């Protein structure tokens, strides 16, 4: 359902043209949870930005649900993004003076008034991410872990088919990171959302079904979970 082919991205730095993505091919199935790992500067964020339609490729195609992002006008892309995609970033990117529920509601305003139904969705999300009682609290008064939970709720408020997360646990300690990943896993299981997560943390990547190892603008290696292995572990640990 996400199909990336021969994706190339060059940036102009001064006179110099640097090729950051060197013809990436990648297919991600509907409902798959994929992690992208790799050294910093290898092009992971750039790839995610292109998959999210936040930037355009120099060459190559990105298809989501059969639609070519690279063939859309900027306006079409914005609408597509709003309807189909959710984003989570390392630094949360909340509006600091807005409350928890205002931040979560933010993506909905583009489509007009908040209906009763939408308000119900917001309250449910606040519950689901474990922020009950904090819905009127301003975002800049929350801890990092709490802010990222708000960001996840905001990313999910439109029921996107794809959730794109760039180092979602990068600013969090291990306990908070685990909590965020547990949340993502639960949402992933319940809604069969496709998740693409960039991370340098193997603890985080371990939650995925497939790990793409990125290096120097291309895919170095792909590692998938195998059914048989898990049974072996259960046997070892449960004995």
């Amino acid at each position, binding site marked *: 359902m996400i199909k990336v082919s021969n994706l190339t991205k060059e940036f102009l730095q001064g006179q110099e043209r640097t090729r950051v993505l060197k013809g990436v091919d990648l297919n991600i199935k509907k409902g798959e949870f994929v992690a992208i790992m790799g*050294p910093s500067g290898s092009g992971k964020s750039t790839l995610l930005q292109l998959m999210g339609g936040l930037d355009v490729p120099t060459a190559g195609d990105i298809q989501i649900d059969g639609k070519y992002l690279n063939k859309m006008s900027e306006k079409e892309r914005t609408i597509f993004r709003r309807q189909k995609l959710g984003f989570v970033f390392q630094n949360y990117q909340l509006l600091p003076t807005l409350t928890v529920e205002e931040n979560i509601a933010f993506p909905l305003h583009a489509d007009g008034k908040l209906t009763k139904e939408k308000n119900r969705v917001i309250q449910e999300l606040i519950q689901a991410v474990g922020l009950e009682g904090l819905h009127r609290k301003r975002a800049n008064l929350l801890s990092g872990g709490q802010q990222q939970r708000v960001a996840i709720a905001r990313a999910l408020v439109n029921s996107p088919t794809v959730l794109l997360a760039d180092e979602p646990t990068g600013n969090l300690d291990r306990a908070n990171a685990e909590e965020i990943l*547990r949340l993502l*896993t639960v949402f992933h299981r319940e809604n069969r959302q496709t998740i693409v997560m960039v991370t340098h943390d*193997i*603890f985080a*990547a*371990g*939650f*995925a079904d497939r*790990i793409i*190892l990125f*290096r*120097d603008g291309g895919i*170095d*290696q792909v*590692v998938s*979970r*195998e059914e048989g*292995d*898990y049974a*072996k*572990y*259960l046997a*070892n*640990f449960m004995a």
Partner: protein
Amino acid sequence: MSVKYGILTLLYQKKHHGYELKLELDSLFGIKGKINPGQIYTTLDRLIRDQLVSSAGMDDQERKLYELTPKGKDELEKWLLEPVPYTTTKEDFFFKWSCARKINFAQEKKMLEQQKAVVIKEVMELTKLKTELLLQGDESKYLLITGILLHLEADLNWINQVENRIH
């Protein structure tokens, strides 16, 4: 750590006599493994029987020399390229990697990549298990798995560091 593959590694480089093999093996195994000479000669006999090693005459001091056969060379390369399962000990991989370095093995990068895949698979399975244990409220096993994961993370960092120096 295996005397068999240690000997194959050393003979991959050049012919050796028995005592030389003992000294070189001690250094390859590091401080942990002092090997008794008897073990070396029984292993050599077995390797000759299996046609992995053959005798190569005497040196100028009348000491018996050994050399690697083509079959022995294949056997060593096959072993180097076999990733080490993590249910056994990771020391096995460090030893294997030291052997590869000793002979400037051309496929070191492939070895590292394959081993990395084994480690990552392990991490994925353990993470899944860990999540389940947490749901079941099995705190001790959960913590145990967290401990294993920290070791795996360290191993992965090490492999990445070696890879970055090769690239």
